[in-house]
């Protein structure tokens, strides 16, 4: 009979062994999936690794893929840490991209010293405002924030569609006859293109550096300030927080706004760093927000771990896109992400509980 007991203390080696073991387990399961569906597992994994991390070019592409994931991963982990399940990172990123693009178009003929900070601010505001809808509803009417924030993802995607495909909005390019027939966003002026830091052959986009900076700020905020302490108490025990006189309602609003702002900054970075236009198809197809949830859970809501996991998953996604074709299974990266997450969730049990095999049944003995 299997017995599961709660561990009183967690050995240090487990904190490393369990995540590694979970990853291995996920790849084992994935191997089985690939074999069952007649794909060569080792070949597939090898191509994923080489295309994701194997060269300077691969690394630069992985930075591009990882940048939005850092933002959405931080977005989810900031909120999840307080048991506030904001899964609207996707829509908040779109809103940041919309306002960021507007700022870029409006201020593009000024210098970059004005337009780039304006885009950053616009992205932050767009994401925060959109996240405050589920935030306010949760804080004042205790409406389920999971469903509201998710429904708003669909609404935000429709807003982008409307701006580019079904209206003559400020964001839509109508300058040429072909642009009138095939709708597309206005291309941002050069001054609205975010700078890139060159280190050797590596190209670090401004968004990536901002994402790392946000991770540091989040870490300081959550582990070194009274605000962060209260957020963690509310997350672990809302009742204790109420008895201690913490203002739960204000924290919900603040954390949702922070969470949305981070995702919105990711949206602005999409405009400024990579796409240079409001790109409805590209943004909605990428699923950055949902991947962010996976990343936050894998990183166990630790901001530095979020950056690391985002880099690894970004590499996988980058390889997945690069390899997509007749001989490379589509949807594979999503399946792999899900499997990793399941295995890590299962592995959590090993962190918290000790499993022992018993010959005789203990059900007759009194519970300890």
């Amino acid at each position, binding site marked *: 009979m299997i017995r599961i007991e709660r561990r009183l203390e967690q050995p240090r080696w487990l904190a490393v062994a369990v995540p590694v073991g979970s990853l291995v387990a996920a790849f084992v399961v994935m191997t089985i999936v690939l074999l069952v569906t007649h794909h060569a597992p080792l070949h597939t994994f090898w191509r994923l690794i080489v295309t994701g991390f194997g060269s300077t070019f691969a690394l630069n592409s992985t930075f591009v893929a990882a940048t939005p994931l850092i933002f959405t991963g931080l977005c989810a982990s900031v909120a999840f840490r307080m048991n506030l399940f904001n899964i609207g990172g996707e829509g908040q990123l779109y809103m940041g991209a919309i306002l960021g693009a507007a700022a870029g178009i409006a201020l593009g003929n000024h210098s970059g010293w004005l337009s780039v900070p304006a885009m950053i601010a616009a992205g932050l505001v767009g994401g925060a405002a959109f996240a405050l809808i589920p935030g306010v509803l949760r804080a004042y009417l205790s409406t389920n924030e999971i469903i509201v924030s998710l429904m708003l993802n669909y*609404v935000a995607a429709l807003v982008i569609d409307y701006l580019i495909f079904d209206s003559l909005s400020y964001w839509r390019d109508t300058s040429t006859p072909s642009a009138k027939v095939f709708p597309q966003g206005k291309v941002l002026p050069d001054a609205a293109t975010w700078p890139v830091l060159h280190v050797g052959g590596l190209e670090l986009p401004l968004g990536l550096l901002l994402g790392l900076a946000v991770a540091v700020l989040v870490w300081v905020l959550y582990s070194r300030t009274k605000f962060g302490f209260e957020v963690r108490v509310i997350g672990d025990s809302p009742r204790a927080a109420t008895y201690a006189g913490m203002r739960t309602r204000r924290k919900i609003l603040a954390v949702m706004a922070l969470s949305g702002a981070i995702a919105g900054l990711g949206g602005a970075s999409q405009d400024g760093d990579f796409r240079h236009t409001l790109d409805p198809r590209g943004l909605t197809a990428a699923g950055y927000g949902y991947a962010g949830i996976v990343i936050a859970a894998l990183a166990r809501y630790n901001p530095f771990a979020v950056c690391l996991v985002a880099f690894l998953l970004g590499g996988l996604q980058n390889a997945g896109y690069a390899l997509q074709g007749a001989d490379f299974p589509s949807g594979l990266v*999503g*399946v792999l992400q899900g499997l990793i*997450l*399941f295995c890590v*969730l299962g592995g959590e049990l090993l962190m918290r509980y000790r499993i022992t095999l018993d010959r005789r049944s203990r059900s007759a003995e009194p519970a300890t």
Partner: protein
Amino acid sequence: MILAAGINDSIVVVVLASAVVYGTPLLYAALGELLAERSGVLNLGVEGMMLVGAVMGFWADLKTGSPGVAFLVAALSGALLSLIHAFLVVTLRANQIVSGLALTIFAGAAGLSSYLANDLNVADHPARHPFNSFLPHGWRTAPVVGPILFDQSAIVYLSWILVVAVAFYLGRTRPGLNLRAVGEAPAAADAMGINVAAYRYVHTLLGGALAGLGGAVFTLWITPQWQDGITGGAGWIAIALVIFAFWRPLLCIVGAYFFGAFSGIPFTFQARGILQGVPPELFQSLPYVMTIVVLVVVSSAGARRRIGAPAALGRPYVREER
């Protein structure tokens, strides 16, 4: 007869008929989620299970040509996915919210469902079976009730039977009573000799099977073909629907057709050229916006006295730690 045709062509009747059509997948998925939540297991993986049910059911239909087999395969694949969730949250006591989200990401539009669709090569095929109404012509063309109630497929009538069956099961049978005990007070149920884990497993699996069926309703009857992400958030609306229905099966049917109407309106209005000046995105956002509005109304009413929600919803049951 001509009069009847006139009425049956009116926009109100057409919208109501489409409400039943688009409400049906919601109804299946919501009934399934209701069973799982009544046992205390919140499963946010409905969208993913629906999508995999949709693709597997469609594939089985292409292969075998038997709609019965197709729905069976859809239900089985939904149940199989929910088994992952059940194992993680019941046996391994993982966080139900995170595990459910993981299930949707794993199985959803960019995951297993599209992997399978690609691998089984089901895109660009039309479904083999039109599920037409089998009722007498006179019934189907009857004014008002004809198109809304009688000109529907067997899938719709099966869902009505299911609603009654679930209501009867919960309210009038011993296992149903046990199920409610497991969801409300697992420790007390355990003391009564009810196997809490078994009840949670079984009803999570039933929930997955019904979600798979609901997904297959899209690919086998409504669309009827496969495209990536075909459910378009229906799984999430179904989860909201359970809250809206206060965890009561009979209220699920009202809610399903209410949300079904808003899901059908964009297509109906577009086909008829109604309100052409209004951007289509406005109609398309209706189901999502209405879900939020209804949820706000329900939660502000329900917050005062937690109506309906099983007391142990979302909490793992550990005998040693009660």
